[in-house]
């Protein structure tokens, strides 16, 4: 069965907007980010994990004592900070995209039946969502990571646990709204099965909401991953995760300020452009959707 994703006409019109209003800056930064992540091996001057203890804590090139082989200086183990920031983009995007994907999917799988079937199913699932929302997932993640040692799986599972209830609540609200619309009633009258209605009619209408929601959540996921890594319970060393890099320089603020500064700026630019894109999308597609 070929599913045609038909975004309702009204919203398509708004999608095709004159170029002038498209947020050029955030899109440019994001494009740059995705490119850096994909072409990391080509772009990065050196390897992100290759150490040379002799050239430890070199300042950035333009500061006295720095050298242009290490434009942004080196860290505690003499690793090139620029290469690590570039590879860091790959980690941040991969982690946050996977987590949002899995979390979102799980949220939708819970929300669609809840929103559509309503009644006891809805009440039960929403109770589960409320419980999930009130569990301090970060705390559980920290205990898990300290006990078993930080790992990619731990970080992703913490973010997924954090994200899915938020998706579920948002998507359920949206499904309820769409369910009341006339074209659903017509579809029922036309005899289409419940699954078909869900997939062909309801889901496409969720796409704008999901689009907006995901763009905002990816930014939050990147910050969460970086925070967990900073606390030493996120991405395990020596992977050049931005959060870990900021943590490396945490105590050397006076004598080696650049170790923490640049990865922080990388996080800032990435999340800023994601948020700007999210806002722009929300204003275009779904103005009433409150900032999640």
């Amino acid at each position, binding site marked *: 069965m070929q599913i045609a994703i038909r975004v309702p006409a009204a919203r398509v019109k708004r999608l095709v907007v004159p170029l002038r209003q498209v947020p050029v800056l955030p899109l440019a930064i994001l494009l740059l980010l995705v490119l850096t992540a994909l072409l990391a091996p080509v772009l990065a001057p050196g390897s992100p994990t290759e150490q040379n203890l002799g050239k430890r804590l070199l300042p950035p090139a333009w500061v006295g004592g720095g050298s242009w082989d290490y434009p942004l200086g080196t860290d505690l183990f003499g690793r090139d900070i620029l290469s690590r920031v570039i590879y860091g983009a790959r980690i941040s995007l991969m982690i946050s995209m996977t987590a949002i994907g899995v979390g979102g999917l799980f949220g939708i799988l819970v929300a669609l039946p809840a929103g559509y079937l309503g009644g006891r199913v809805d009440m039960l699932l929403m109770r589960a969502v409320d419980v999930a929302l009130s569990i301090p997932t970060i705390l559980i993640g920290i205990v898990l990571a300290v006990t078993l040692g930080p790992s990619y799986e731990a970080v992703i599972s913490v973010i997924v646990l954090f994200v899915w209830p938020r998706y579920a609540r948002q998507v359920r609200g949206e499904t309820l709204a769409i369910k009341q619309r006339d074209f659903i009633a017509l579809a029922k009258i036309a005899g289409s099965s419940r699954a078909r209605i869900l997939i062909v009619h309801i889901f496409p209408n969720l796409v704008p909401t999901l689009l907006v929601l995901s763009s905002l959540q990816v930014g939050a996921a990147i910050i969460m991953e970086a925070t967990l890594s900073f606390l030493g319970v996120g991405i395990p060393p020596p992977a050049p995760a931005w959060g870990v890099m900021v943590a490396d320089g945490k105590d050397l603020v006076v004598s080696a300020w650049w170790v923490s500064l640049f990865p922080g700026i990388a996080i800032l630019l990435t999340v800023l452009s994601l948020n*700007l894109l999210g806002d722009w999308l929300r204003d275009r597609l779904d103005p009433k959707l409150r900032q999640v």
Partner: protein
Amino acid sequence: MGRYILGHIVQAVFTMWIVVTLVFGLVRLAGSPVDILAGELASREQVEALKQRFGLDKPLHVQYGMYLWGILRGDFGESVITREPAMAEVLQRSWASVQLGAVAMVFTLAMALPIGVYAAVYRGRRLDRLASAFGILGQAVPPFWLGILLIWLFAGQLRWLPAAGKSGPASFVMPVIVISWYAVAGIMRLTRSTMLDVLDSEYIKLARIKGLPEHSVIWKHGLKNAAIPVITYGALIFVGLFLVGSVVAETIFTWPGVGRLIILQSVRFRDFPVVQAAVIFICFLYVTVNLFVDILYSYLDPRIRRA
């Protein structure tokens, strides 16, 4: 009203049970406090002796049963390391965390609500553009990185504020900023967008028609309506952020709080009773705030109260 709250209490207890079980299992996944206790130079029988002493040699489900039964009786067990009652140790450390959290919460509301409202009222003017810029930027700056910058600036260069530890009001400034930075940006943007909707509404127009002074129109009629989504949504991110924020702030500024107690000491030493007690305490705090918010929500919005 009663049924509404009772439902929430039952759900809160259920959540606590899940968290408690989760943490009970997680902490025991690898390593046991006995190795820490015995130290590097220990001998085999000495480790066994310690195990018996703390009941860690009993099968897991027995330990779990004893543990749950203990909680019901309010006995959270004894810290394996200091052999003080675990909850006493947590409560001693919790005062610093609660203090920090409360000040940060007040700071967030004092900053986010007024700015959000004024940004909505003076829509499009300089204050609004400034507030929106701060809002978007605020949610992009990673709080821990901000903390480091603050330390570099205020403690390192200017030496105005103490770099670490809890000592008098000056030591509150930076940790509070780190905790509430993200929340202020979020709540402010939400307040602004909600307030904009409210100000366009008919009942605001009617309030003005009644001849009410502008401040009463905005702060009485407007704010009470705008507060509802801010409280419900705000609470959602508030409590989550405060937990993460306080752990981060406690780590950067070595604030003697419960967050750090869990990471730095208890879990590293597999001090199961203290970790479990600390998690229960934080979860209890977490769930109570959620409950309080629900009640506040129903007070604010009569449509819910009569449900």
